[in-house]
């Protein structure tokens, strides 16, 4: 069944969408989109290290992204630079270092476009295992830290005062972001992973009135984006990542009309 590259891509993409749905909601709620971008950019460095040391790509990306997140926390504590400047510094320097390292690896043929924008042809059966088992683990851990993470997203002091340990939840959440980037980089590409996190969640925000609903709509939006995006990628021979993100954008635009309607109904 998984012999066909397209079926593999579809199964992989749907697995990714199940995880980016809920994580993306938290990225939007906690205003972490630029943070997600920074981790994704640093993933290139992870990929190049994986190639040069003949190491598993997902694992290597996961380690490098977590490392960048740790460095960010250290820089925030030790410098007076604002958070967005530090994020920009890390995002672009890790992307640049990654590309420079690629330049040195002349013995390997690199598909840089595939890395940046995703390549459905690249998804292997092993990747499917990584995505579905890794994805299930991410969701399970998210479920375990849910209460503390959600409460501190609403109000940090309430969560801390009432014993929910928000700092621990935040640290674990950062690792989960690094993990989803690691398992979805082949499908969507490192420049567009943040889009997969944010756009379905933003679409869901437009049409939901409770956190649970927003998460469910965000997952559904992600799944639809993957299906529409991959089919059109096959049809028009476009790169898979941009096609998926364009489909997500299409759904977002539709959700805007829903808002207009509800405002009209209220009046």
């Amino acid at each position, binding site marked *: 069944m998984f012999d066909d590259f397209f079926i593999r891509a579809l199964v992989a993409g749907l697995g990714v969408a199940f995880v980016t749905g809920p994580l993306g909601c938290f990225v939007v709620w906690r205003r972490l989109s630029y943070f997600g971008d920074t981790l994704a950019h640093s993933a290139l460095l992870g990929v190049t290290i994986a190639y040069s040391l003949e190491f598993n790509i997902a694992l290597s990306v996961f380690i490098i992204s977590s490392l960048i997140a740790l460095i960010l926390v250290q820089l925030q504590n030790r410098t007076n630079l604002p958070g967005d400047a530090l994020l920009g510094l890390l995002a672009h320097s890790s992307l640049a270092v990654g590309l420079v390292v690629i330049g040195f690896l002349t013995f390997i043929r690199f598909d840089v476009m595939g890395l940046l924008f995703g390549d459905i042809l690249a998804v292997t059966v092993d990747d499917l295992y990584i995505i579905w088992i890794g994805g299930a683990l991410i969701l399970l851990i998210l479920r375990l830290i849910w*209460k503390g993470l959600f409460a501190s997203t*609403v109000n940090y002091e*309430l969560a*801390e005062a009432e*014993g929910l340990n928000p700092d621990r939840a935040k640290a674990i959440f950062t690792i989960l972001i690094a993990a989803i980037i690691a398992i979805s980089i082949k499908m969507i590409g490192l420049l567009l992973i943040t889009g997969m996190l944010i756009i379905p969640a933003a679409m869901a*925000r437009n049409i939901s009135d*409770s*956190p649970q609903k927003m998460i469910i709509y965000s997952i559904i939006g992600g799944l639809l984006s993957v299906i529409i995006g991959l089919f059109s990628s096959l049809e028009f021979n476009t790169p898979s990542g941009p096609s998926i993100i364009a489909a997500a954008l299409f759904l977002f635009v539709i959700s805007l009309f829903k808002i207009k309607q509800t405002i009209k109904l209220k009046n």
Partner: protein
Amino acid sequence: MSSNNNVLVKMNNAGYRHNDKWLVQGVSLSVERGKIVTLIGPNGSGKSTTAKIALGILKKIDGHVEKYTNKIGYVPQKISVDWTLPLRVYDFMILTENLDEKTIDEALSLTGVIHLKDKSLGNLSGGEFQRVLLARAISKKPELLVLDEPVQGVDFTGEIALYELIKKISDELNCGILLISHDLHTVMSATDHVVCLNGHVCCSGTPIDVAKNTEYKALFGEQASQILTRYEHKHDHVHTIEGEIKKN
């Protein structure tokens, strides 16, 4: 104060410094089961900071704090909820602990906002939001309630009712309450122990002790002192609008 097992939180010579400026220092107090301790003091005197030290929100502190309970309900003074989050009153009620519908309804009814249960939190007025905050804090039946200006923005009649409710909760749940208020007038009747802050503990004791204290008078003026003591005598008469005095 005795250090028996009724003590819920105990601060010993605690203080907090931010950017080399002491926000508050040298605070010693303890909150016991069934007792209401009130913090008073002018703006910037370190009332909220003291509450945050007691709750363990502030970490790098001077001195010692010991908490003897994990069942805590907190009403913060300022709460900035980010409205990128679609949140109904119901979702907010189960924020830190899962409660059944009946418990939630009871708490919302007590503070008079049961009709807002399915409303979006972002659409509430300041006073309504304050009532929801209080309902959330009491719904989990805490052993320690920390209330930082719990009735700000609530209308005058509601304010009195809510203070009565706070007193009732303290009796019914036998929980300890750390109350912060600048509203000397309303608070004092129910308080067991008053701590007057001005960057440090300026004086403390029963409401009547504090009212007589000269430092307190210097801080709040002679009039405030009269407000406090007024609660210490029983009213056996009422004043009519015309100025007559009627016996009860």
